[in-house]
């Protein structure tokens, strides 16, 4: 589809050229890619499979902490470091930092995959609202557990190692990481849903009992889908922790009332259950968020909450859904123009 190729070209060019043309906005554009990743991975189990999780942010936070713990403990005693509340200011050589970071990101992803499988045992027997509430509970529980763990700084958090690069390259470095992760996530999802996996996921969404009755091993698909989401969320959490320079459980690692719900809002806005819906939704949402920030300040989150409600109540099909209903042929949907009356031969 040429429309899609245009989108890829446009986003690709913007992704590569953006931070060069607008260096002051590098971190904002990096945030955009983070939002795209969050919305797209949420949609794997959410819009495509019908398992709407309110707790995917769990993996974001756990990934963040795993990476930080590895980065620091490779060269220092973690408990001492956190107890000093930033008095210990380690200086990492370039190789020390980057080895720690790479290992940290990989570990974050892997640990989150394992965590998703474990948590799946506790929540995949729940349907609909119960699954949403259960995953929300898990996220809150994880946040509270981390708050009590003094080795990782408890409520006070961890001060992150400083990136040993000239300051003008700092933002760009993290930008590249965010962009690459978002691209990797997108194409992983694109591939997954071009195979039988996509059909199985949609079958589970449309009628899980029927899928079970037809022999589809639904648990396996649910586990795999959530594991992929957990992996990328863990990785991006690790990167974000380093970007922000300081991590703590309430507002940075497990931001439930903000990013935790934004990923759902973005997928819904763009159109859940589609490949491009979450991407478009993330872009639209991020633009609105960034432009209203300067004008609304404290009222920003109230406005975003209202946007979420209005979206849910009045615009459920999202942008993609709306486009599909206006121009179905462009999306390969075939509409039966004849009347649907049962004739002699079906």
């Amino acid at each position, binding site marked *: 589809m040429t429309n899609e190729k245009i989108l890829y070209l446009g986003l690709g060019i913007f992704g590569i050229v953006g931070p060069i043309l607008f260096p002051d906005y590098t971190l904002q554009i990096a945030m955009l890619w983070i939002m795209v990743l969050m919305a797209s991975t949420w949609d794997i189990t959410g819009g495509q499979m019908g398992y709407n999780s309110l707790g995917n942010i769990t993996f974001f936070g756990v990934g963040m902490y795993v990476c930080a713990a590895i980065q620091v403990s490779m060269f220092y005693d973690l408990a001492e470091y956190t107890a000093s509340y930033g008095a210990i200011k380690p200086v990492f050589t370039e190789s020390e930092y980057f080895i720690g970071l790479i290992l940290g990101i990989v570990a974050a992803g892997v640990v989150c995959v394992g965590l998703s499988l474990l948590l799946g045992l506790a929540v995949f027997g729940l349907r*609909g609202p119960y699954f*949403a509430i259960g995953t929300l509970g898990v996220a809150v529980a994880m946040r509270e557990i981390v708050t009590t763990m003094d080795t990782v700084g408890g409520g006070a958090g961890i001060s992150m190692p400083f990136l040993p690069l000239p300051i003008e390259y700092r933002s760009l470095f993290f930008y590249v990481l965010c962009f690459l992760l978002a691209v990797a996530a997108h194409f992983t999802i694109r591939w997954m849903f071009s195979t039988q996996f996509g059909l199985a996921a949609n079958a589970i969404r449309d009628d899980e009992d029927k899928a079970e009755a037809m022999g589809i091993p639904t648990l396996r698909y649910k586990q795999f889908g959530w594991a992929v989401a957990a992996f990328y969320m863990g990785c991006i959490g690790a990167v974000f922790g380093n970007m922000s320079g300081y991590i703590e459980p309430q507002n940075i690692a497990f931001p439930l009332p903000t990013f935790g719900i934004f990923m759902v809002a973005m997928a819904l806005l763009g159109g859940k259950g589609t490949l491009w819906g979450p991407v478009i939704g993330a872009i639209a949402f991020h633009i609105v968020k960034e432009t209203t920030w300067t004008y609304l300040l404290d009222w920003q989150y109230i406005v975003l*909450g209202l946007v979420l409600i209005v979206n849910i109540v009045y615009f*459920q099909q999202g942008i993609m859904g709306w486009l599909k209903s206006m121009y179905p042929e462009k999306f390969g949907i075939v509409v039966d123009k004849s009347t649907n009356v049962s004739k002699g031969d079906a």
Partner: protein
Amino acid sequence: MFELLFVSAPIMNVQLLLEGIFIGSVFALSAYGLALIWGVMNVKNLAQGDFVIMGGYCAFAVYQLGIHPLFAIPVVIVFMFCFGWIVYKLIIKRVIDHDMFVSLLATFGLSLLLQQLLNLVFGPEVQTLDSQYGVFLLGDFVTVPKIKIISLVIAAAFATAVVIFMKRSRMGQAIRATAQDARAARVLGIDTDQVYAFTFALNAAICGVAGVLVSMIWSIQPFYGIIFSLRTFAIVTAAGLGNLPGVIGMSFVLGWFEQYAGVLAGAEWQIAASVFVLIGVLVWRQIQARRHRQVVR
């Protein structure tokens, strides 16, 4: 530990048991309200805790004017009832027929909105309202703030009033009829939309009263709402919808569990304890359902 177990233990147990009952009675109010709208309209209100906190802040506003918070109760009932009615008409009504995640998400969005609004208006500080009633001494060692006893009495009285209303009044009967079979109720001439609006508004009022009590016997903060909501869900999920004694019992159990967790593991574990109960209840329900080869819907 020795002293804890052998000297202070009996006294502490009595203290904790009482605390559990006092806070449990407030949980029970919120849980009853949730069970009400869940049973009648199949709405799972994630903003339930935020309604409670909102009621608490109404009491706070009254308190700022120099009036004793207990006198806020009638004001809060009326205010929250109207608020609930408006929320129903603007939001709930339009998502009630859609799939269940949509209605849940709508209430979650409402929850976030309320949290941010309360934060903006009242600030993020934790507040507790001083009732200035002093304490009551039970024997020589157990101190019970008088306000907690008053709160228990008010909670019980209010709950009784609501239950009597549900049993005796025309609207109460209409609500119960609609809960059993909405279509049949409509055929018999009951305006189900009105019933739904009333039920949701009633729930908001119940939460409001619970909030006033919470503000005095515990504490309120704009972001406490979601934990309260999760607690309420745990209670209703464990007890089951039609089971009023079960709801009350489970509320007390949760109250006790939190108190003991706070003492045995530390205050920072109190919130985690209630969320663990929720997860535990959900896991237990799944195990139960699996025996019948079902899932938890």
